[in-house]
């Protein structure tokens, strides 16, 4: 059922749910919301299952006109959205009538805004998910970002009573980020200097960033003999260091294998924040032990799942 029509598509607006897990051995990335936490929060507000598909808007959001009445909610980066010219805030339920225009502007802090609609967004399904994976042109609206005049279809999922999550669970967006990470499986390949620099100096997010990963510029982080490494598995959150010394932080659309040494892995509890990093933002990686990371993940998972049944952090 069409509930809205796209008037302006924004910079890169795609349909994303929690992604497709378990197909990496076929080379199929997970995809899904780059900021899973914000996806879950927007869905909870409109009574959707936490992993229902929503619109993921990047840096500059879309404008759309509703063709039917609809309940929606916004989360993540603040794109100064307005409904019929009146400001609408993130983290609240809003009701639109047929003919109302919802306009999102640009984010000044953070990179991605999620718009969830009661009933969930519909799209092309591939391997159990309708998340858009742009490089393979699959999922979402014909595998691509939204364009002018596209119809926004609703999946008609059953909704429950809305859940208003504590404000403390909302991602805190900024231009400086501290992401906790554990040592990666190839950490030993890096000399002491490079390893120390990695966990102490800030990196700047390069312009070369997308849903696949962020290129980070900072102190050179290169491993000895890296060029001869054999390709091995990588995941969202993996930090790979090519021999030019500028590491990549892999995100939701992370390729399934890579040939560059894996210096670190951002913990699941912090990975959703990486989906909000903009070009030019500064990032520090703080080392924690695997045992600590498991503890942090278990606590955060339990806390969120106490509000949103079935929620999975990673």
């Amino acid at each position, binding site marked *: 059922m069409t509930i809205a029509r796209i008037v302006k598509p924004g910079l890169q607006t795609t349909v994303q749910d929690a992604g497709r*897990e*378990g197909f*990496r*051995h*076929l*080379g*199929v*990335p997970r995809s899904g919301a780059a900021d899973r936490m914000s996806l879950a929060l927007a869905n909870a507000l409109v009574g959707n299952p936490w992993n229902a598909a929503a619109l993921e808007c990047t840096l500059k959001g879309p404008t759309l006109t509703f063709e039917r009445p609809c309940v929606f909610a916004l989360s993540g980066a603040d794109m100064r959205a307005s409904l019929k010219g009146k400001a609408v805030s993130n983290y609240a339920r809003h009701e639109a009538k047929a003919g109302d225009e919802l306009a999102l502007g640009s984010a000044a802090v953070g990179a991605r805004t999620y718009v969830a609609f009661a009933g969930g967004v519909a799209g092309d399904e*591939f391997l159990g998910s309708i998340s858009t994976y742009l*490089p*393979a*042109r*699959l999922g979402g609206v014909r*595998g691509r970002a939204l364009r002018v005049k596209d119809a926004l279809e609703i999946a008609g999922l059953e909704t429950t009573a809305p859940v208003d999550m504590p404000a403390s669970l909302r991602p805190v967006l900024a231009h400086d980020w501290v992401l906790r990470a*554990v*040592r*990666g*499986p190839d950490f030993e390949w890096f000399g002491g200097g490079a390893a120390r620099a990695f966990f102490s100096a800030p990196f700047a997010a390069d312009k*070369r960033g997308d849903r*696949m990963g962020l290129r980070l510029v900072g102190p050179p982080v290169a491993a000895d003999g890296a*060029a*001869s*490494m*054999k*390709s*091995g*598995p990588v*995941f969202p*959150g*993996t930090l790979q260091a*090519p*021999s*030019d010394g*500028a590491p990549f932080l892999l995100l939701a659309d992370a*390729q*399934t*294998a*890579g*040939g*560059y040494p*894996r210096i670190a*892995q951002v*913990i*699941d509890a912090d990975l959703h924040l990486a989906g909000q990093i903009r070009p030019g933002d500064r990032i520090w990686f703080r080392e924690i032990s*695997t045992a600590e*990371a*498991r503890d942090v*993940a*278990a606590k955060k*998972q339990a806390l969120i799942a106490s509000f949103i049944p079935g929620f*999975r952090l*990673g």
Partner: protein
Amino acid sequence: MKTAFSIAAFGERGWLARFEGFPDDVASGLFANAVADRLRAGEGVTDAVAGVDSVALRFDPARLDADDARAMFEEAVKKTPRRRPAAVTKTIEIPVCYGGVYGSDFDSLCAHLNLDADELIGLHAQPRYRVITLGFAPGFAYLGGLDPRLDVPRLETPRAQVEAGSVGIAGAMAGVYSLASPGGWRIIGRTPISLFDAGAKSPFVLEPGAEIRFSPIPESEFQKRRKETR
């Protein structure tokens, strides 16, 4: 054959096993795939992914304890037979237009390896390759069997965009980019055929164990086949 393995943490809900002592990448890669296949159905396993000489196991900590996952992993590695890879599952011919606009690293590789164009094409198109594992992107296959004279390192800085169908070599391996994507392999040509189609009944053309042959084609043939596949 005398082989060994080690297991290390890969993030808080993952383990990575690395293998040593296999005679070549095809042997280690197909062993890695067999281990991954064995693990994939396990309770609490979310991903089991083979690399060329490694396997990653990822689990859902709510359903599988980290130490139990490691024990399960160790057992799977020990139980998987280390024999030479079994018979070829299928043979696929991949036509390639070498050099020119389709092979951005072709000329520099010729110069670097001190080969003329025909020699480079011959060295690449001669061997029968085996699919070691799928990965990197949907439908991308790592191919073993490359002539050792073509063992070249990856690019220092990956390219932001490599065209779909690009045929590359790096680190003693051959591969074909199934999709346009960033990539660090040295590109020597391009195939007009498609290796991945999300809308098809079987989206993946290649599978681990399959045999691959590259056949050189002129640009006119490339253009013709390209039109046919579209």
